[in-house]
Every structure is written in C-alpha cells, then in structure tokens.
C-alpha cells in the first residue's frame, strides 16, 4: 500500500506522524501503570520509595536518552564514528535540517523528533521493570545510579543490534515491539538485581517454605495493570511506525486478545495449582499475555494471538512458583512477566504465525541468548561493582521500619488516624 511514490503524500505523512505521537502518549502512561502496579504490590511502608523511584526513572530515562541513548541505539555512523562523536562532546540530538528531519526522515512516516520521543518512552520502561523486582530492599541512590547506566548504555546497545539495524537484524531475528529488546532486557536486569540483593527479610523460612508478603493495595495494582494494557495499544500499535490501517488494526486485535487470553490462562492454571482465585495471578497473567504477543503482534492471526496469550498466562503461576522455589524473591513478579513471557513471546514468532519455521526459530533463539547473555552480564557486573563500592542493600533495621521512613522520612498515607490533625496542628 505504501509504494515509493505514494509516501510523499503530505496528508499521509501528517496522519502517520500523528499516530506515532499519540502512541507516544500511550506509552508514557505505561510508566504510570508500572508505578501503580508496583506500589500496589509492595508493602505500605515502602510505597513512597517505589513512587519516588518511578518518578526519577522516567526523568532519568528521558534525559539520558536525549543525551546519548538515542544516538547509541540508532547510530547514523559506525562505531568508530560514534566514539569520535561522543569523544568531542557531541551529545544530545542533531535535528537534520529542513525536510530531512520531517517528510524525508522516515519515508513520510514520522519526523526526527517523533522518532526520538517515541523511542525515549520505550527506553525508561526497562528500568521500571527492574525497579519492581528489587523493591523493598534496595538503596535509593545506588539504584538510581544503576538505572542511569543501564538505560544510557546497556539498553541502547542491544537495541541497536536489532532496531538500529545491527547484526541481529541482519540475522533475521524478529522482535516486533520488544518482547526481548525491551521486556526481557528489563527482566534480565531484574534477575541480576535480585540474585545479588537476596530475598526480603523473612520471605523464605529456614525450612524452605515461602512466606507470602502481600502487596498493600490490590486496587492500585489493578489500576496499574489496566493502565499498562491501555498503554500497550500504543506500545505495539505505534511500533507499526505508521498509521497503516491494516497493520495497526491487526496489532490492536492481537494485543487485546492476547491480554485477555493471558488473564484466562493464568486464571485456570492458578485455580488448578493453588485452588484459589488469586487476583495477583490474573493481573500478572494479563501482563504476561501482553508481553508474549509483543514480539509477533503483527504476525499472528487473532486466533494465534489467543494461543500465544493463553500460554503466556499459563506460564505465570508456574514461573512464580519456580522463582520462589529457587528463592529468587521478586515482589511484583517482574521476572515471571517480562523475562519468562518475553522469552516465550520471542520464541513464539518461530513457532506460530506467518513467519514460523525452523530458520526463524533458530534466529529467535540466537537473539534471545545473545541479548540475555549480554544484558545479564552487564547488569550483574554493574550491580556487583556498585555493591562493592557503596553497597546496594539497606540495613535490616531500615528494611524492618520501611524505606519510606528511613530513606525519605515520609509516610505514604499520613493522618489516617483521627488524632492526626491534632498532632499536626498543636
């Protein structure tokens, strides 16, 4: 539909670009979704801390992506050129002059700035994923330091391998909107973090049994999941990178159905394993379905997307149990959702849908492995270094009293007691 001569059409350019901008806003709202979900899933005494971290992550993510991330991920020069460029202090954005940054920038699909801001919203996502997994016990400043490094170097590097036209792209690795490049990357970072941090105090008894530590607000967690689903239409839909009616509407259908199927998969598996209707599993199931479809949202029929979502949802309760069995403590289930379902979704492209096939499957496995090894090593190394230098875990006393009081000297909910107004107005 978009033949070469057609994309010079002014109106098409305006509408294509508009859609990416609207999608940008939707992806932005995912940060609120993550914040709400993570806040709901931690204990009350750590709620301010997780909110604070999420506010800073989006700020750091946007600024560093402007500073160097975007250029690293989509280099218009080769590696040597890039080093030279940064070497002479040429950070920030370089708007191509005139129509080169507008109509001609991406064959009439979006402008240079649109490209930047859409990608920038994705970037911060990977840190937010880490933030949930390491919650309730990580020190604030070391975590923010990790995020800065992770989002400005690690994420753009692997992103470049595929979306920047790097070697994985040449190899035929397929990842439509980032099951691996965004979600698994976050998941690997999370995994490195929780291994080095250790479990929250009291999570695992000496006899190996698991003590659940319920999140403090299910309504907030549910709010977060719905907002994430809402934003996911922009995450996947915007990744079409134009407003092509056929492609975007298909992606909407597969995204919606996979999320729904994720809920149903998690519902049935959680019910049969745990004999309970566990809301937290259904919530994670929805997210699992969404992460799962992300790699191949444009390759699946609606029926296939349901299959991908069902499997992803079903994986969630099992993954949660397994991570708990090996004593990897993840308060919000980020590794189950983003890492496990991210891998599943990327594999699914080789198994189901219009590009399924052995060759594709091998490419997918290569991509998963390469990015996994790199990201995990990078994150583990970074966390390890920070741990050696300044420590990454709060003291037991701080953990017990909560990070809100000990790191922020604030409470998430003040004055819930009747006496409060008097205390405050003495």
């Amino acid at each position: 539909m978009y033949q070469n001569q057609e994309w010079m059409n002014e109106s098409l350019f305006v509408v294509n670009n508009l859609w990416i901008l609207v999608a940008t806003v939707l992806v932005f709202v995912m940060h609120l979704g993550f914040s709400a979900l993570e806040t709901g899933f931690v204990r009350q005494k750590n709620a301010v801390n997780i909110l604070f971290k999420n506010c800073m992550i989006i700020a750091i993510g946007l600024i560093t992506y402007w500073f160097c991330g975007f250029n690293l991920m989509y280099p218009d020069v080769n590696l040597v050129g890039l080093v030279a460029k940064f070497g002479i202090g040429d950070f920030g954005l370089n708007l191509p002059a005139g129509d080169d940054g507008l109509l001609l920038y991406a064959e009439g699909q979006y402008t240079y700035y649109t490209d930047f801001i859409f990608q920038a919203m994705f970037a911060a996502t990977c840190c937010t994923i880490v933030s949930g997994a390491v919650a309730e016990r990580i020190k604030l400043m070391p975590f923010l330091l990790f995020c800065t490094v992770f989002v400005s170097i690690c994420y753009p590097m692997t992103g470049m391998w595929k979306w920047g036209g790097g070697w994985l792209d040449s190899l035929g690795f397929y990842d439509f909107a980032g099951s691996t490049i965004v979600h698994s990357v976050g998941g690997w970072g999370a995994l490195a973090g929780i291994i080095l941090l250790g479990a929250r105090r009291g999570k695992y008894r000496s006899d190996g049994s698991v003590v659940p530590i319920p999140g403090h607000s299910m309504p907030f967690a549910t709010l977060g999941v719905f907002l994430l689903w809402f934003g996911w239409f922009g995450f996947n839909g915007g990744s079409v990178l134009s407003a092509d009616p056929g492609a975007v509407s298909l992606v909407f259908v597969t995204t919606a159905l996979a999320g729904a199927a994720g809920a149903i998969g998690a519902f049935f598996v959680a019910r049969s394993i745990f004999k309970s209707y566990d809301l937290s599993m259904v919530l994670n199931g929805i997210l699992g379905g969404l992460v799962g479809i992300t790699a191949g949202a444009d390759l699946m029929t609606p029926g296939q997307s349901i299959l991908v979502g069902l499997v992803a949802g079903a994986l969630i309760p099992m993954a949660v149990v397994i991570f708990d069995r090996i004593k990897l403590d993840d308060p919000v289930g980020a590794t189950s959702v983003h890492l496990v379902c991210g891998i599943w979704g990327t594999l699914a492209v080789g198994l189901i849908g219009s590009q399924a096939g052995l060759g594709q499957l091998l490419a997918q496995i290569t991509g998963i492995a390469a990015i996994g090894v790199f990201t995990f090593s990078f994150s583990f190394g970074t966390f390890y270094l920070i741990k050696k230098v300044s420590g990454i875990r709060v003291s037991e006393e701080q953990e017990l009293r909560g990070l809100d009081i000990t790191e922020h000297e604030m409470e998430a909910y003040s004055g819930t007691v009747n006496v409060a107004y008097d205390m405050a107005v003495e």
Partner: protein
Amino acid sequence: MKKIEAIIRSSRFDEVKAALSEADINFFTFTEVKGFGKQKGEHVVYRGAVYDVGYIARLLIQIILPDNQVEHAVEHIRKAAYTGEIGDGKIIVTHIEEVISIRTSKRNEEAL
C-alpha cells in the same frame, strides 16, 4: 466500681450492643483488637503461597459499672456474644478504684 472488658467476635457486636441496651447500659467504649486463641487465624493465599495471618480481628468492649450491675451485664453480654463455636472470647471483670466524669467532675456512680 467495676470495669467489664469483653473480647468478642466482631460479628456479634450488634447483638451485644442490643443486649446491653436491653440491660439499660448505653454507655461504653470499644476498640478493635487482634486475638490469638484456639480458633485458627484467617487463611490467606497470595501468589501461590499459603499464609495464616495468625490472629483474628476481634472487638474489645469496655464498660464501667457500679458493682451491683456487673453480674447482670456479664450475663447479657455472654448470651449475646455466644455462638458455641471455638473463638467466642472472654469477659473480664476488674475492680477500679475511681471513675471521674470530665464534664461534671463527679465521681464513681455519679460519674456515669
């Protein structure tokens, strides 16, 4: 003067309140408390792990009464709070030396 403290099931509060009112006792103070006892705590499942919160939420009712009304009140509370299942709770009677009404400065019987 005596103080009656009754630890009861939250779900029997209305019945106890009604019974007290029948016994002409309309003044009392209550708090939510948590109890460990023979009755097992609430069973909670979260992310696949089972979890016994251990305690059960209960209400503690406190009533100040002249000595002669105590037996009567205890009987009323007991009947109203009774279900027969494990976990019904206890009623405790203590002697108090003095009660003063803040508003009237009156003491003991007159303070009520």
